[in-house]
């Protein structure tokens, strides 16, 4: 954007309003360009949110109709009944985000600095699974983790299942239907959202800065810690957000890889809306989820912002 602003024209900096450089361009041009898209988002994104909040404060039934009674008690009810699932969703999404960061960092680093002419091929391999059906790939995880499958048998052979049980990651003889399976699926499904922003910020790190650290007698590890990591922080912040937000609301992984004891908040929202048909409860849950995420993300961005300045 700024590249357009400070074009190397004669006559010094261009006044901002002259940005519309064509003589035929009027002040209304940006509004006309923006209008269809903004209208679409206002009608199909903002208006539904208003309806959602209003629905959560109504009482009645689907058959008899709903009336807006500002029944705030629905929220108290929802919070007391489903706080367990809400908390679980945040914990699973948080763990999956940290795991994705831990797993994606070496990958993004290798692609950015060590891949040479294979860089584009590797990037394609990161993106391609993302373009293949999410549900089919999650079903493939069922196959991978299933009872008699190779992973299960392999782990059993090296007492891996005993170890996982000792760590309370699983509690039976099965990998499927455990929190471990759900978190594995969540981490997997949102991994490209972590790798790509990390790669984008790592790729911009000037290798001469790391060399300079070495010249100043920093060990490679110190150079990495003090130069590369801080410079890749914006990518890490973007990646954690892009992973955490969809993971917290996701219910495919907990539905297909989990059990009733791993129910996440998204499953409850969908169930209340589509099976129980209790709209006020479902809407209130949805609003709670949205508010929780907005607050957490706001706190996180503020925190990450100050960290960057330090």
């Amino acid at each position: 954007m700024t590249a357009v602003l400070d074009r190397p024209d004669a006559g010094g900096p261009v006044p901002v309003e002259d940005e519309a450089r064509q003589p035929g361009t009027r002040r209304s041009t940006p509004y006309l360009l923006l209008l269809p898209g903004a209208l679409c988002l206002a009608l199909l994104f903002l208006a539904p949110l208003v309806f959602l909040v209003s629905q959560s404060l109504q009482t009645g039934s689907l058959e008899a109709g709903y009336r807006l009674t500002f029944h705030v008690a629905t929220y108290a009810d929802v919070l007391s009944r489903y706080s367990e699932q809400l908390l679980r969703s945040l914990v699973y999404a948080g763990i999956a985000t940290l795991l994705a960061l831990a797993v994606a960092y070496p990958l993004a680093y290798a692609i950015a600095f060590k891949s040479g002419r294979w860089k584009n091929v590797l990037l394609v391999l990161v993106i391609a699974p993302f373009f293949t059906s999410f549900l089919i790939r999650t079903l493939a995880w069922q196959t991978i983790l299933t009872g008699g499958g190779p992973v299960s048998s392999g782990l059993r052979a090296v007492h891996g299942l005993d170890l996982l049980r000792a760590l309370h990651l699983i509690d039976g003889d099965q990998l499927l239907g455990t929190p471990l399976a759900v978190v594995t699926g969540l981490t997997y499904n949102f991994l490209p959202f972590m790798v790509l922003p990390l790669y984008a910020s790592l790729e911009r790190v000037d290798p001469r800065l790391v060399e300079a650290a070495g010249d100043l007698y920093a060990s490679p590890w110190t150079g990495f810690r003090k130069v590369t990591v801080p410079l890749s922080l914006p990518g890490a912040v973007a990646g954690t957000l892009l992973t955490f937000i969809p993971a917290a609301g996701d219910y495919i992984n907990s539905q297909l890889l989990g059990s009733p004891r791993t129910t996440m908040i998204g499953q409850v929202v969908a169930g209340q809306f589509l099976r129980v048909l209790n709209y006020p409860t479902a809407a209130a849950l949805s609003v709670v989820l949205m508010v929780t995420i907005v607050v957490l993300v706001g706190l996180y961005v503020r925190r990450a912002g100050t960290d960057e300045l330090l």
Partner: protein
Amino acid sequence: MSTALPSTSTSTRAPRRRRSPLAWVREHLIALIAALVFLYLLLPNAVVVLFSVNQPEGRFNYTWQRFSLDAWLHPCAPAGMCSSLALSLKIGLLATVLATALGTLAAFAMARHRFRGRSGANLLIFLPMATPEVVMGSSLLTLFVNLRFPLGAGTILLAHVMFCLSFVVVTVKARIAGLDPRLEQAAMDLYADEKQTFLRVTLPLVAPGIGAAALLSFALSFDDYIITNFNASSSSVTFPMYVYGAASRGTPVQINVIGTVMFVVALAAVGLGQLSARRRATA
């Protein structure tokens, strides 16, 4: 990865050419980890391909039995699968065209103009990407139910255009912002009028961004389950909805055939895009 630079800091204490395996592991640690992550990332795709030539015993295609090309020869055998695929393709194409058109216009407004309300517009575009899908899906359902709007393919399309739009704006805007403004000035200096400049210089330069945005839109729309499921009716079953239903009814092998084809097409599309970008760069 194989081209990892040999370490230049060969210490004087190691005159032997051949170093210990431990040193080799240390040197290639990052590459080894990256390879393991790739295994994690691509394992499910390998399973999808492998199980597309399986002949399962029961209704579920979860354990390997024996090799068979049945599913590949009769891809449309499971009832309802190919019609759901057709619906997904139709909605995907329409949503892509609409979202790309609206999003590209908005991207030009955002990248090329400073106007009152710009930051508000920015927020409006950013918010859908920061909202969990369940919230978007359920709020749209509330809207449609309250307005007595009949659910079906139409409501699915509206939902898809909405959530693809933001991704289009962001992708195209990044491309416009990365343009060298001197190219347009050069065109103007050579007496091109604004229309000619736009059509012959600006648009071709922005086109790869628009193409990428369209590809992303299609992928997002074609793959969406959560939002779609909230806004569909029993007569408008998309392919992801079919797959989700199959997970409890029994998974036909043909699902894996479609999964394999999608993976190959995606690889080809992304690969060709990269290739043509490189050819342009070297030309």
